[in-house]
């Protein structure tokens, strides 16, 4: 069955290109040019995913539309924005968006992100029973709390393991610094974002990441948070 994607953007040329591009990847694409139309279409056609521009050039803007949609639906939302500013991204994520993409973007990147989100949505019900995770040379045994790199077991402190497990069980999902702090250290660590950076730094070394050869498991989004690489 074809997946249905709703594209919401006020720029007709971009709507057209996305319709062609995503159509070519086998999705059914419906489009809306403003927030009201987007909400109505979502209610009538229940798409599998929504791609939503952050500004939309009219009221309600994308952030507001995202908030309203989240009041009654869990359909995954990917935000589009030209602002390469961290604050906008954090606002979008906290309004309930699942991911965001900065304009201009390549169609292959958009396709990869959509696939990652859709895969995660289908996998989620089984998450509780997942016992192991594999990504490249990294193998995590969730039952025994064991981590192997290139077949060799490595030792992680309990906090490092919790951090890795949190990221690895949400592959491809952007986790904000705040969300990571809350989940691993507890809500009382509210503002100590640099804890996350210190521990990610240590974790990278233990996981033997080699960025020079693009061997990386934890991807960084400056000022926003981290995401674990997508697992096929």
């Amino acid at each position, binding site marked *: 069955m074809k997946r249905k994607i709703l594209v919401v953007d006020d720029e007709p040329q971009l709507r057209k290109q996305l319709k062609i591009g995503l159509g070519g990847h086998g999705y059914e694409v419906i489009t809306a040019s403003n927030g009201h139309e987007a909400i109505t279409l979502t209610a009538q056609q229940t798409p599998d995913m929504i791609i939503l521009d952050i500004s939309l050039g009219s009221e309600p803007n994308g952030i507001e539309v995202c908030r309203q949609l989240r009041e009654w639906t869990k359909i995954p939302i990917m935000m589009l924005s030209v602002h390469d500013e961290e604050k906008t991204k954090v606002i979008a994520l906290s309004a309930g968006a699942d991911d965001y993409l900065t304009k201009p973007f390549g169609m292959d990147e958009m396709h990869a992100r959509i696939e990652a989100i859709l895969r995660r949505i289908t996998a989620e019900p089984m998450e509780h029973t997942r016992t192991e995770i594999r990504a490249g040379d990294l193998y995590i045994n969730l039952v025994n709390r064991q981590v192997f790199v290139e077949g060799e077991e490595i030792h992680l402190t309990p906090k490092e393991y919790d951090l890795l497990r949190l990221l690895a069980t949400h592959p491809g999902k952007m986790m904000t610094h705040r969300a990571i702090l809350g989940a691993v250290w507890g809500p009382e660590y509210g503002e*100590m974002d640099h804890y996350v950076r210190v521990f990610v730094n240590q974790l990278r070394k233990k996981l033997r990441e080699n960025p020079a050869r693009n061997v990386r498991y934890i991807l960084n989004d400056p000022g926003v948070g981290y995401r674990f690489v997508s697992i096929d």
Partner: protein
Amino acid sequence: MKEAFKSYGVALGLVVVTTVMAVPLRTTLTLANFTMIYLLLVLILAIQRGIIPSLVTAFASFLSINFFLVPPYYTFIVADPREVLDLVVFLVVGVVAGRLAAKAREQAQEAQQRAHDQEVLYRLADSFNQFGTRSGVTDSLMQVVQREVRALRVQVLPADEKAPLVEGVAHYTLLQTGADIYGTLMVVCAEALPASRLQLVNACARQAAQAIQRAELAEKARLSQQFEEADRLKTAILHAASHDLRTPITIIKSSASNLRQLGRQLGPEEEAEIAQTIENEADELNKLVGNLLDMSRLKAGTLTLNAELNSLEEVVGDVVARVYQISHQERVMTTFPDDMPLVCFDYGLILQAVTNLVDNTLRYEPADSKVEVRGEFDVRQARLKIINHGETIPPEVKARMMEPFFHGAGGRTGLGMPIAKGIIEAHGGQLWVEDTIGHGATFVIALPIMEAHGHEAQNSGG
């Protein structure tokens, strides 16, 4: 009032004491002796206590001498007519001398007050010069006025604000110089201020107004200089950038025309190649636009740093991972000490600066060697060295290579270098070029390390 009664008390007390001591001597001393002693009293009172107490002393003395010291005693009758003359002369001399002495006292006091006021104004002017800002000036004005007139409350009200309701007597003075009004100085005291204090307050206000005017003029001059510089830079950038911007646009347009017009005639490989070119040039254009925006923000001083404790190693990791994604080659080698500390910086901006520098360095790196990025630190700063092994840069190029759109032997540097420099300097850091030992160029980024941050996290267990 209390002070006045005290003065009269002192005056009468002294007269009584003197009289008590004089009575046993009234047969041995002459009237002339007594009048001299009492005259001395009058003068002392005039100098110490002012005119009215001295007059009171004069009259009381006159009566005391008459009653106790001139025969017949204990009456106001004077037996010897010559003594009547003495007494009258005493009274007149006492009154006149008292008035003169009191006048001298007042003048001395006034002179002292004026000297004090001058001193206050002088010190005020001095403190205004220290604070070149409006709020600094008004703060020290309020402080000084508060101290000098013992006010219940001193406040500078903005020019367009209504005065609040207050208890006590309020005095208002405009902070005005020429036609410019910078607000109103409100001084609230328990009772109305005497004229001399009001004068001091007014003089302070006048000086403050002038200081504020000076500060605002200096600020205006600074801003207009900044605008001028931004404007000049804009023109220069527009000039140079039009070429750099048009190049990718030209390539995109011609590629798209080829696709449309040649369509079927193209082989699938050619078609893919043209499409790839369009994508690459669009990325190039996007990068250039981003650089232009950053440059104008840097120069206009409107760049806001979102500085947090971050890892330089992570920045370098992001940069070299991108290099691999683009070139599919391991072109960069990194070395970091295990205990490299976190440094306070804006991740996105420093990422951009390091990307610009590494990109630039890679362009001149020989194909058979790798660019090296090395992290170092001491107590004061963390450094990133980006080491290239190509040609050594001549000194005259080194001096100018950080200017926008500099044309060197190796082609244009565009905006990458000046932006990197601007970003690093906005962090209070430095960027410079050294020669690599052997040959090549080494870019050094130095960022200051903030005290007592972040280390706790590294030490606390995990």
